[in-house]
């Protein structure tokens, strides 16, 4: 069971998740301190470790649109949040899979802060309202990266297999 701790609307950009002025900070050990930096209350809770790992951040449509900055993923990954959204922007989704941030696409999700969600392979059940919502599986093409534990181990394996493509 996962608790919804934060809810945002549609088209939440990576500028909102991780403001551009902090882009010189790149280390995954440092970026989590700057997650949602412009929302002082939520950022303070994250920094104070008041949000337990495995909590749900609920997004609307097109979550993570805009800049390709990977800090927008590593800052959330650092708190081990699960992102449940109606849809994701392409680069954010890709970055999340590459870094192993758990993302769930659930087009019709209805939930509020405080609700308890049960996430299975095919559906998200809102235990608080009793409603069930189907989820969209990640693209099959991504499964190999997820199975490898992220893009870094995936690429390392490919290199070691001598599968390096040369021109």
């Amino acid at each position, binding site marked *: 069971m996962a608790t919804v701790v934060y809810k945002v609307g*549609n*088209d939440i*950009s990576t*500028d*909102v998740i991780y*403001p*551009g*002025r902090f*882009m*010189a*900070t*790149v*280390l995954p050990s440092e970026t989590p301190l700057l997650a949602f930096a*412009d929302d002082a209350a939520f950022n303070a809770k994250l920094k104070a470790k008041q949000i337990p790992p495995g909590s749900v951040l609920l997004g609307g*449509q*097109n979550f993570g*649109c*805009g*800049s*390709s*900055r*990977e*800090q927008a*993923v590593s800052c959330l990954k650092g708190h081990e949040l699960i992102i449940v959204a109606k*849809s994701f*922007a*392409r*680069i954010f989704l*890709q*970055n999340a899979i*590459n*870094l192993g941030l758990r993302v769930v696409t659930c087009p019709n999700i209805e939930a509020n802060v405080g609700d308890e969600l049960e996430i299975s392979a095919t559906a998200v059940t809102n235990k608080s309202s009793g409603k069930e919502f189907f989820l969209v599986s990640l*693209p*099959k*093409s*991504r499964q*190999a*990266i997820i199975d490898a534990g*992220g*893009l*870094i181990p*995936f*690429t*390392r394996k*490919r*290199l*070691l297999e001598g*599968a*390096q*493509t*040369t*021109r």
Partner: protein
Amino acid sequence: MTTVEKILARASGLPSVKVGDVVEPKVDLAMSHENAALVINQFNEIYKGTNLTPKIWDASRVAVIFDHRVPAESAKTASNQKKVREFVGVQSVTKFHDIRGDVGGICHQILPENGYVRPGAVIVGTDSHTTSHGALGAFAFGIGATEMASVWALGVAVNVEVPPTIKVVVKGRFKKFVGAKDLILHLVGKLTAQGANFKVLEFHGPTIKQMNTSSRLTLCNMAVEAGATAGIVPADLETERYLREEAGVAEPIDFVASDQDAVYEQVIEINVAKLTPQIACPHTVDNVKPIDAVVGKKVHQVVIGSCTNGRLDDLAIAAKIMKGKKVSQGTRMLIFPASGKVFRQALAKGYVGAFMQAGAVVMNSGCGPCLGIHEGALGDGETALSTTNRNFKGRMGNPNSEVYLCSPAVAAASAITGVITNPQGGTN
């Protein structure tokens, strides 16, 4: 097949591909800016525990351009840049553009300007506006830093799904002071910020045929604001002219074009004959209104520049409007030529002098205030009018401010009055 399908088929060594196929295209060009610092970390991580020495698969296909924070605003940035500078030296990356007045500038200007972008190429960049390079008939898309590290190691983009394509056919002649920026703002408003997510926007029609590469770069640059993976204008005679005359390319050019029977997910037709200047209002790029809806709005800062609108054409139209005029008291105007080359051309043509005489500040080439990193931040409650590409909350360095997006003509006319102004004239 569509143009992008053909490019992906060839780069993947396949006779054909269709939407949804998963392919591994060889990468022709891999571009990063300051975030190469993060790519380097991830690249080294890949090699950890392997006994292999970290080595870029083909250093001649990697480009690194400093533009986001130039010159460095902090010790942290300067140290990151130093680290990247050392890395490109060790790896023999020759397409490295440091902070310089001769070869420096914004990555999305440097790439086409130097002939690095070719029709039919597969280009990846750790920047969402990598879509720009579709203007020259390449398939160019943004990726994250870890994915770039994987490209540096393998030379391919792993697990790329062939995207569906939306055909956009543009007809009609633009009215005076209306152009590519107004067209793409109009299209993003129409499609919404997610209307083209995971899709390609392929541009056609007589209006596009007559558009120069500079304007096509503006168009493809903002394709990502509708969520598009890429924007593309299949190569034509104008592409050839640009590559030969402006980028100094001598090699044969591959005119990859869509087949007559190419399958499109959707066809959108736009007639620009009646299009008025368009404005993207806070805080999303798809919140687009005709200028009449916001005329008279007070602006504290006007910005001309960025990968969207910092090219010579953009400065030319602004200079024409501003020559002999003054920037309104209470409004500051910042101008960022897109590259050192553009800056020198603008100097030679007298634009820089005209801007400064008018009271504008002409800054060094770079991303400037577009992404709120190190200069031109807004004060609480202030409003900016900018030719850049994003107006998200906090984008220009302050969540308690607003950004409106517009064309260079609107920006110039508005700097003079201090309020959003239609350069075509009218009631204001």
